[in-house]
């Protein structure tokens, strides 16, 4: 399966991604992004909120790769590497924060920190 996918991919390799094909990928990436957004906004669990940001990163990464393919350049993939970097860094920081916050309130709810509104 994977092999045939590879083959298929390499078959189409030199030819640039057409407009309508690109549109499919972009649609999926945008949908992933907004689903991540919905999740971030609606879910109260901080871990899930951060997962949702990762989902938004995924949407952005997919769009980057699709555009890179469309332009036959490597920049799109390069920037996915950086997106991965940022995602990893964010995950490290965010999870450390979540652990810290959880220790204080014994809950993962973002609403437990309401009084930070000043």
């Amino acid at each position, binding site marked *: 399966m994977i092999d045939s996918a590879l083959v298929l991919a390499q078959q189409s390799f030199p030819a640039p991604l057409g407009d309508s094909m690109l549109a499919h990928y972009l649609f999926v990436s945008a949908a992933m992004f907004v689903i991540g*957004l919905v999740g971030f*906004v609606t879910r*109260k669990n901080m871990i899930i*909120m951060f997962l949702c940001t990762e989902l938004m990163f995924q949407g952005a990464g997919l769009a980057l790769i699709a555009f890179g393919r469309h332009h036959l350049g490597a920049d799109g993939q390069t920037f996915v590497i950086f997106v991965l970097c940022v995602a990893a860094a964010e995950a490290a920081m965010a999870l450390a924060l979540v652990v810290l916050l959880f220790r204080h309130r014994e809950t993962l709810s973002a*609403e437990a*920190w*309401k009084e*930070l*509104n*000043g």
Partner: protein
Amino acid sequence: MIQLTPQLTTLLSTLTNPMVALSDPAAADPHAAATTAHAVGEVGHGPAWVLLIPFLPLLGFVLNAIYAAIGNKSKLPAWTTVGLLAVAFATTLSMFLSYDGSPYTVHAFDWIQVHFGDKSMIADFSFYVDKLTILWMLFVTGLATLIALYASEYMSNDIGTGYCRFFSAFGLFVFSMSCLVMGDNLLMLYLGWEGVGLCSYLLIGYFYKKPSAVAAAKKAFIVNRIGDLGLALGIYLTFVHFGTLEFAELFSNEKLMGYVADASVGNFSAIPGQAQWIALLLMIGAFGKSAQFPLYVWLPDAMEGPTPVSALIHAATMVTAGVYLIARMYPVFLVSEFALPTVAWIGTITAVLAATIGMAQFDIKRIMAYSTVSQLGYMFAGLGLLTTTGAAFHVLTHAFFKALLFLACGAVMHGFAGQLDLRKLSGVAWMKGWGIVGVTMLIGCMNLAGLPYITSGFYSKDMIIAEAFVTPGYSIIGWLLIVTAILTAYYTFRVYFRVFVGPQHAEPGNEHHDHDDHAHGEEHNHDAGQHGDHHSSGFHPHAPGWAVNVVLAVLAFASIAAISLAYIDKAEHHGWVGSMVHDSTAYFHSPYVEQAHHAAEGTAHAVDGPVGFKAPKAVFGMDAHTAMILITGIGGIFGVLVAAFFHGPKGWQGLFIGGRTEAAKCRMDAVARRFGPIPKMAENKWYVDEIYHAILVAPLRVFSHVLHWLDKLLVDGLVNLFGFLPRLFAWVIRPSQSGVLQGYAVNMAGGVVILLVVVIVVVLRAGGAA
């Protein structure tokens, strides 16, 4: 704009390159333009050593400030000041002796030189010397030297910073007074004017920890400010109208000479109103500085200062600045139809009013203050009656005897621990060591009372009163002034009889000599019901030292010796002062005096007097001067007798049957009761201060309260409204700041969406249009 550009160019070139201005011959030597002088004539350049007169006191000021900074605790400041002032006096004397009859200027440095268009305002730091200047500077520096010597002992309780401060301000005062008197332009005069005002403020408020002294200093400063406004406006108007501020140019100004010619024939309608206003404005300044009604109220309060200050500033020198201003600017006053009559009437009113108040006071220093106001009133009356000679003579004699009186009072106050209440002192002259004070005080009182022939005050006063009678239409002023002279004699000797003669008795004041900031004359008890006669046992008045005695003796001698001045040059100029004034711009040849003399000699002939003036007349069928000598002489003696009757000690020397049995009680008490509330009203200064408070201060206070509330409600309200609007806005949107992360995320996403919708719509529209 077209006119402004060259003006600006000139101004800028002056500012950026002073050499340009200097290279301009007219600018470099403004006096070169004064070649067509009428009254003044050629004004030459004087010797540079004249500059020592103002700058030595300034050096004293600087040195004393340095002494204060290095914490000097000796009498060095006093000796420095006395020495420098003595040199300044010697310089003034040599200036007098070397004066050859023509005025000159001495240039110190360029001060203000502004050129615009075809005009230029030049006010250099220069000094103008003529006989009027010399006359004034002689008694200013002379008295300042003597009073500084007196103060070296008087202020010795304050040795240290206060001592330095006192002499520092003293030096600055003499410098300012020199600038005022010697300045060669009106701006220099104004500089000195403000300078003496400042020094007066500093010295009245010398005991700055005492609230009454601070209040008095503020009062003096603020009241003077009203006058200074008039002066400033007058100077401004002078420049606007005559285009110059320099005396030399002003008095040779053809415009002014033309006005004087018009005025001398009574043709005032030919003189523009602007020129007439100058004198009225300057007059307000003179009224403020010389304590004339209604601006006299600061002077009695100014007695809060140390006595030497009262003597120097508030009796002898500074208060005569107003007289000097009018004398100096006499041509300008002559061209104003109403200025001099106003001056005469205001002077008379002041003289009478102050004399009546002085009669009812119990604080001897305050009595002297009111007598000063009263005598200043004489001087102004003299100026207004066109006898600058009489006014200047009275200034001179008054300077001597009033300084003497003040210093004698100061000696008493100093010796009796601040006691100034004449009900609590008696027989001071008989006490050990007080003989010189007693004798000199007597001489001073005689001068003030104007006892005939033996006092100089008599001659100067007589000259003014006589002028009132020979000037048509002013005989009411003459009679008022005679009444005032009688009152003056009465209240002067009231003080003398009560304090200096009679049974020896003294209650010390509440002043402690070992205290640094001791308050002179604190808590004067004016309530007649509370006088006690208990001695505080163990109190020993300390008699004045040599410095005080020497100064008093010198002043007493000068007061007597000044009589001779009336006889020098009598035939030609009515005395030495007349000869001094005659050569200056202050001189105005009064036709009426001549005519009065002629009338007395029976050689009167019809003279076409100026319009509005009646023909002069003889008084009581004789020469006005002779008549006045009789009347005022008799009046003065009568006043002294009345004082002796009411206040003299009982059985005193078998000469009079005095009415005073002890220090506090006298026949006057019974008489005063018959007058009902009038003595009380006089004692309370006719409630002038209260009236001022009611008609000026209180409405101002109400007005300021109104403004305060206006500010608070309207202005603050507006500001608060602008502050409230964001708060209201914040109150509306505050709930959106829930503190929940998702709330912020929703807001952010919503904001992004709205923004993007706008962008997309705009892009689609643009795309559709394309």
